[in-house]
């Protein structure tokens, strides 16, 4: 026991935390994409596990092929747009349920990504890593964090602006009440396709930056991305609501999506520092996400449920029975 505590080094935790902030910011872009699809369009977009990896493999292969790394990121973004649009079209044009559309695209993307990558894993040559803006190397970490933070800030600003335009308002209305949106002349099918495309564009961009950060891309980097993104969105929502209550607005919500992502990675860093098996964290996170997604329903159920009413009525009868006997 003592040995265990002695083995925990505080500087190592600080180090892990700095890395976690960087990771959180990068995955924050993914979480913003999921915020767009899940919270604004009300669609759980299963594409992201695939499109995140697509962003990563496209970026790495282009850099290996001699592309400028920042130009490669732009291509990653567009690759993601296409992934999301495909999911959107499967749903809007062919009538396949949203979740299944996403799963199909994700499934197909595994093959696509593997073909792009050529093998299961590609590492960027050291020479190529020199001119990357995003690097996990401790010497460059503070610079990476700064650049990523500015970048994420710009993305939040653009998203906030977009969601308040006529088009963005139409997209939000589609997510809230499709029937109303159509009655107001909004092409809800087009809105879903565009929204999913944008969301997966952000996810792929996040994947591209992530692959630069680690100087490599793996066919499996996107595994579980949807849950991490959902967890970030949910943590962000809960924290934002706890701090701002009724003053919560769209801009704060967007900012706190990224805060949620950073919190997620700091918790993960802490778990790793405690030398707990980090793969078990997936179980923990799944439980936490399930709990938070259930909270609104449970609150409702506490106010009104069949079993609750049955119990109260049984009690009343019992009391009546008791009086009758007396």
């Amino acid at each position: 026991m003592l040995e265990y505590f002695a083995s925990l080094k505080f500087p190592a935790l600080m180090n892990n935390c700095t890395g976690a902030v960087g990771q959180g910011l990068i995955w924050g872009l993914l979480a913003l994409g999921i915020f767009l699809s899940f919270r604004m369009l009300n669609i759980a977009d299963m594409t992201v596990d695939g499109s995140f990896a697509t962003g990563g493999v496209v970026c790495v292969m282009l850099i290996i092929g001699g592309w400028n790394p920042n130009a490669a990121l732009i291509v990653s973004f567009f690759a993601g747009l296409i992934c999301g649009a495909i999911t959107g079209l499967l749903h809007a044009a062919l009538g396949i349920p949203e979740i299944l559309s996403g799963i199909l695209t994700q499934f197909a993307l595994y093959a696509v990504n593997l073909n792009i990558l050529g093998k299961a894993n590609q590492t960027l040559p050291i020479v190529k890593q020199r001119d990357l803006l995003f690097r996990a190397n401790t010497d460059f970490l503070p610079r990476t964090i700064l650049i990523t933070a500015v970048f994420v800030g710009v993305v939040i600003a653009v998203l906030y602006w977009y969601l308040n335009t006529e088009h963005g308002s139409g997209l939000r209305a589609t997510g809230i009440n499709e029937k109303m949106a159509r009655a107001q002349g909004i092409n809800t099918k087009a809105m879903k396709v565009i929204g999913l495309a944008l969301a997966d564009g952000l996810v792929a961009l996040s994947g591209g930056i992530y692959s630069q950060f680690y100087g490599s891309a793996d066919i499996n980097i996107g595994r579980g991305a949807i849950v991490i993104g959902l967890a970030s969105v949910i943590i962000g929502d809960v924290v934002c609501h706890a701090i701002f209550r009724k003053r919560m607005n769209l801009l704060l919500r967007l900012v706190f999506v990224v805060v949620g992502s950073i919190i997620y990675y700091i918790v993960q860093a802490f778990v790793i520092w405690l030398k707990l098996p980090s793969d078990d964290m997936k179980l923990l996170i799944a439980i936490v996400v399930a709990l938070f997604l259930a909270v609104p329903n449970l609150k409702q159920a506490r106010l009104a449920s069949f079993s609750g009413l049955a119990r109260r009525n049984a009690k009343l009868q019992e009391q009546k029975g008791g009086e009758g006997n007396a």
Partner: protein
Amino acid sequence: MLEIRELYKTFNIGTINEKHALNGVSLKLNPGDFVTVIGGNGAGKSTMLNAVAGVWPADSGMILIDGEDISGKSEYQRAKFLGRVFQDPMIGTAADMSILENLALAARRGQRRGLRMGVTRAEISKYKEALYSLGLGLEERLTTKVGLLSGGQRQALTLLMATIQRPKLLLLDEHTAALDPKTAAKVLSLTRQLVNENKLTALMVTHNMKDALQYGNRTVMMSDGRIIVDIDRENKMRLKVDDLLRLFETHSGSALVNDRMLLG
């Protein structure tokens, strides 16, 4: 204005639940007509309005607005010409958006939605004034989420949204049926006010015979997916609810017995 020609719609074709909901219904409205629509449950009233709104394509027949056949257009494309209020107060508005945002969405019905701001400062005073005319105090609550409003308030707001961008035709499908009598009366008088002020052409389905006679300048009765009686302004003024019931019986061969209608 609106002309419906020989419209047919069958639901669940080829199944045991096959239902001929519209059997060649035809109806022509003149500009400024405010037509109330009555008929038994399942007569096809909602189906007729949904066909006009383009919720699904009709099997055959034409729907003309100002002489243009719109039956090939999808629901969101037709919205340009139509204002709609539904029976369920939840359907007409976006609960998670503010009163202001809902009105701004409605004001852009039929226009291209681009990257201009969704709500501009210049619109706000216009909406305040319009809300003030409802007399519900909503003009003081512009940034309130619509989900926090009562059913009656939401229905009044939906009415305003349906008319703020003047529609060629207003479609009201039992839009007061889910409200308590007092609120229903208030929303009905608002309906009349908005229709008169904007000189709108309107189709209003109601299950309340008194309302059907009292509102509008024309009443049509539906049965079995067809219009069986068409009552003009002069006759409408003379008729009582009892006459209406008798008219229905003679034309449909069955009684229009329905507690909801008698009591409502």
